[in-house]
């Protein structure tokens, strides 16, 4: 069951990722990205990260993608115009990417031999309680710095979106 779930959602993620790169209309790319994020949330759940799976769905697939789609709607973004890509890129781009990914996969297999199999429920440490305890004791300073970062981001967005610039 675990293998079936992994294979199905990994295929969905890769398919949606390829679709994101291939589509020319931004709204199709945005919907593909939502597919990637949703299937990644299921994979997080398989790895025992229940809080992160929910945060992925709410923050990424919910909030950030709504922002993206809102901007696409606001700017009325249409189909991307084709620019002349060089023959070298057309001929070598995809084979180079596949070769690079094959090399990385081989290296991962060689560097981590005999890793255990992932079974659902083997790691119970991803609960809200465990993450909250860690976040508010050991990682308290980074957490507080994050609030300053978000404040700066809000101010930056407000300043950039003013009329005069």
């Amino acid at each position: 069951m675990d293998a079936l779930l992994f294979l199905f959602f990994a295929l969905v993620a890769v398919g949606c990722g390829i679709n994101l790169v291939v589509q020319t209309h931004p709204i199709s790319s945005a919907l593909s990205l939502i597919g990637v994020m949703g299937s990644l949330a299921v994979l997080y759940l398989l790895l025992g990260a229940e809080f992160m799976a929910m945060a992925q769905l709410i923050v990424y697939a919910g909030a950030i993608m709504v922002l993206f789609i809102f901007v696409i709607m606001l700017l009325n973004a249409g189909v991307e115009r084709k620019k002349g890509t060089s023959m070298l890129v057309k001929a070598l781009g995809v084979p180079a990417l596949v070769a690079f990914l094959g090399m990385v996969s081989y290296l991962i297999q060689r560097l981590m031999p005999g890793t255990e199999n992932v079974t659902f429920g083997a790691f119970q440490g991803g609960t809200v309680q465990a993450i909250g305890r860690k976040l508010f004791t050991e990682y308290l300073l980074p957490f507080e710095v994050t609030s300053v970062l978000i404040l700066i981001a809000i101010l930056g967005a407000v300043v950039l979106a003013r009329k005069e610039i």
Partner: protein
Amino acid sequence: MPTTVPLTWYLILSAILFGLGVAGFLFRRNIITVFMSIELMLNAVNLSFISFSYKWRQVDGHIFSFFVMVVAAAEAAVGLAIILTVFKNRSTLAIDEVNSLKN
């Protein structure tokens, strides 16, 4: 057919998604799609963090991935505001046409 998959498969999936993000970042010409490719790369890194968190049975990877998520949200807000400003000034979304520094 085995009922479980090795952890390395999760890492390979993460590498594939990251590679797709890099490809989209390099090949696409629409500034919004380029930005979405960056989000795809961030997601791939998050999957890697959570896989290693599973391997060592530590929750620290989840915390890192949580911070990546927070930074991505802040980055999306500022980045989309920049895209709005660029569109207001240049009336285009193609990154090839935003080349004032080049000339």
